[in-house]
């Protein structure tokens, strides 16, 4: 039988990885909820922010947690750039075209990284990379813990912005009903631009956090892409809080699942959860029925 310690360890790490998923998915849920675009290159934005963290650390010894303040705006502008030149022209195109376009962007960015940075695996070795905190018999890595706290703070912060600021309200309005939002005088095009860029900016936070304990390579984005989509569905498209709790749930499923099943089968569990949710409550655990 599985010991309690083992189970608790899995729960703790499930929550931590879950908070990372939550962060990588929050940007995606915004983009999906407001723009209704499936951005397959989402993982590559994450990858680029991880490389940014790596090079800022290598070159200027900037701690990745601090580097977030630099990388967030970089990703914001990169998102804006991508949106303006590549996404805007296809906003009204059929969904399948949008998918293919973002696939093209994804292939391009992955191989750009390969060409620029080479395929070598890179890790950030911080002085506290391997330090742990002890919670009874459970050990938690310091970078993991910090990532968890920051994820929560960022999510809360974003949620507050969405609920309490004009910008947030405009975004939610544009998400709910584009035509009505225009009638109300909201500059929907500008909102779309900001939303996409904010979505990218979320990754500007997730990337450096992830880089403190995961390896950096041009294809690292693909590791998190599918999971992010699953989390978004779980939480409900456009639902920020949903993405957070969805992320935690998926993190737990993977982590605890790996305790009870052969580790290599735990992704199956994630997909099964996805299918069940899609069939029973496609608007997400926290979404409102839109049909």
């Amino acid at each position, binding site marked *: 039988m599985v*010991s309690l*310690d*083992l189970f608790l*360890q*899995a729960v703790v*790490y*499930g929550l931590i*990885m879950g908070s*990372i998923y939550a962060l990588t998915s929050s940007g995606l849920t915004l983009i999906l909820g407001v723009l209704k675009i499936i951005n397959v290159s989402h993982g590559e934005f994450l990858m680029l922010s991880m490389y940014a963290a790596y090079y800022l650390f290598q070159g200027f010894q900037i701690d990745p947690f601090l580097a977030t303040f630099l990388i967030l705006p970089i990703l914001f502008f990169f998102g804006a750039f991508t949106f303006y030149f590549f996404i805007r022209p296809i906003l009204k195109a059929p969904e399948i075209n949008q998918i293919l376009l973002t696939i093209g962007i994804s292939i391009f960015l992955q*191989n750009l990284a*390969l060409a620029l940075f*080479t*395929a*070598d*695996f*890179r*890790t950030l*070795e911080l002085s506290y*990379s*391997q330090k*742990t905190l002890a919670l009874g018999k459970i*050990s938690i*890595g310091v970078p993991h813990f910090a990532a968890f706290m920051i994820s929560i703070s960022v999510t809360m912060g974003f949620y507050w912005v969405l609920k309490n600021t004009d910008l947030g309200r405009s975004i939610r309005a544009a998400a709910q009903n584009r035509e009505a939002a225009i009638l109300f005088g909201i500059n929907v095009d500008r909102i779309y631009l900001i939303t996409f860029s904010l979505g990218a900016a979320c990754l500007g936070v997730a990337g450096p956090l992830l880089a403190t*304990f*995961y*390896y950096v*390579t*041009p*294809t690292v984005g*693909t*590791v*998190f892409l599918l*999971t992010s989509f699953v989390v978004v569905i779980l939480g409900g498209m456009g639902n920020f809080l949903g993405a957070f709790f969805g992320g935690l749930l998926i993190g737990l499923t*993977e*982590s*605890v*699942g*790996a*305790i009870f099943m*052969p*580790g*290599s*089968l*735990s*992704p199956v569990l994630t997909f099964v959860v996805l299918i069940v949710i899609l069939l029973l409550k496609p608007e997400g655990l926290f979404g409102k029925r839109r049909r």
Partner: protein
Amino acid sequence: MKKRLTVLFVLTLSLGIFIGDALAAVTVRIGAVLPLTGPLAMAGQRVKNVISFAVDEVNAQGGIKALGGAKLELVFGDTQSKPEVAISEVERLVEKENAVILTEAWQSFITLPASQTAERLKTVYYAPVSYADNITERGFRYTFQQEPKASDVARDWVRFLNFVNAQKFAHITKVGVIFENTDMGQSNAAAAKKYLAENGFKQVADLSYPARASDLTSTIAKLKASEPEVVLQAGYIGDAILIAKTADRLGLKVPFIDNGNINDPSYIKTIGPIAEGKLGINMWNKDVPGGQQLFEKYKAKMGEEISGIFVLCYQAIWVFKEALEKAGSADREAVRNALAALNIPASRLYLPYEKIQFNEKGYNVGGGYIVTQVQKQEWVTVWPEKFASKKPVLK
């Protein structure tokens, strides 16, 4: 005026073709189909560097003397880690680029269809790295495998454990196995199960994990809970890095023996002090005879460190040279026959093998593994005794 220019142009072109053709006659082309993009691009790139280095050396030493000093030339293809692309590239390199010998796709699931294609084209496919057990079991004439088989990794793991016990470096009875859920991982693990049982070891863990997992805490926690005295690990370097860090964090401080993927220079570089004490099956190390020299030569010229798995490819180029010298011709069939009849003794090898000699299936019966360990942030050979420069530290 126009007419004269045209004539001049055509003449130059013909001259160019003539010269090009003449030049082509004095080079022998080796085709390399590698994963130059995709998740294994790092390995592909390293192989490219290593074999380019080897080819330059061969040429600098006079090329193929039996062919009047003909130089070796490399032509590359990117498999993109996709079988049908690998097939295309094999076809292209053989037909359009006139490659006489083909080499390494790296991943076994690519090597199988690639070598199949080479077989149809009656061109040698030489695998210095791929080692799936069935590569030479298909009754092919043109496929050659230089490396010991995947199941031999497990055989040597257990031989090493027996050695450790016999020499009283430690007393191992309980062994845990974790493996990546890929062809390589599954093969190593299945063979490990067999050899461990045959040798009276108690296998306390047999854990698989998905390749390129985002987090391995649960798996390592399960591993720790099974209380192994030694862990055998079969996976590629990305996950190996994650495993090392996770194990350290969770306080799992037993010796880990890897299956041959962590001898890449980036391993120690990326995880630093955690690497201390880690063991791995290896194919070569710089403390074997002639190793230090090769290591320094390569570092001086290419600016990076060469490691075991890539020296396999380095050796392959020299094997090609011997085969070409023996064949005395660049004809594919002659080259194939020369390879099949080769018997290179240890004294002429860079690898710590007994010899290189292929049986009728194309499998090299003289190959062997060594075990290396990170001691003081350097890889040193600890087994077998005839190559060991240090004793293994298993505390």
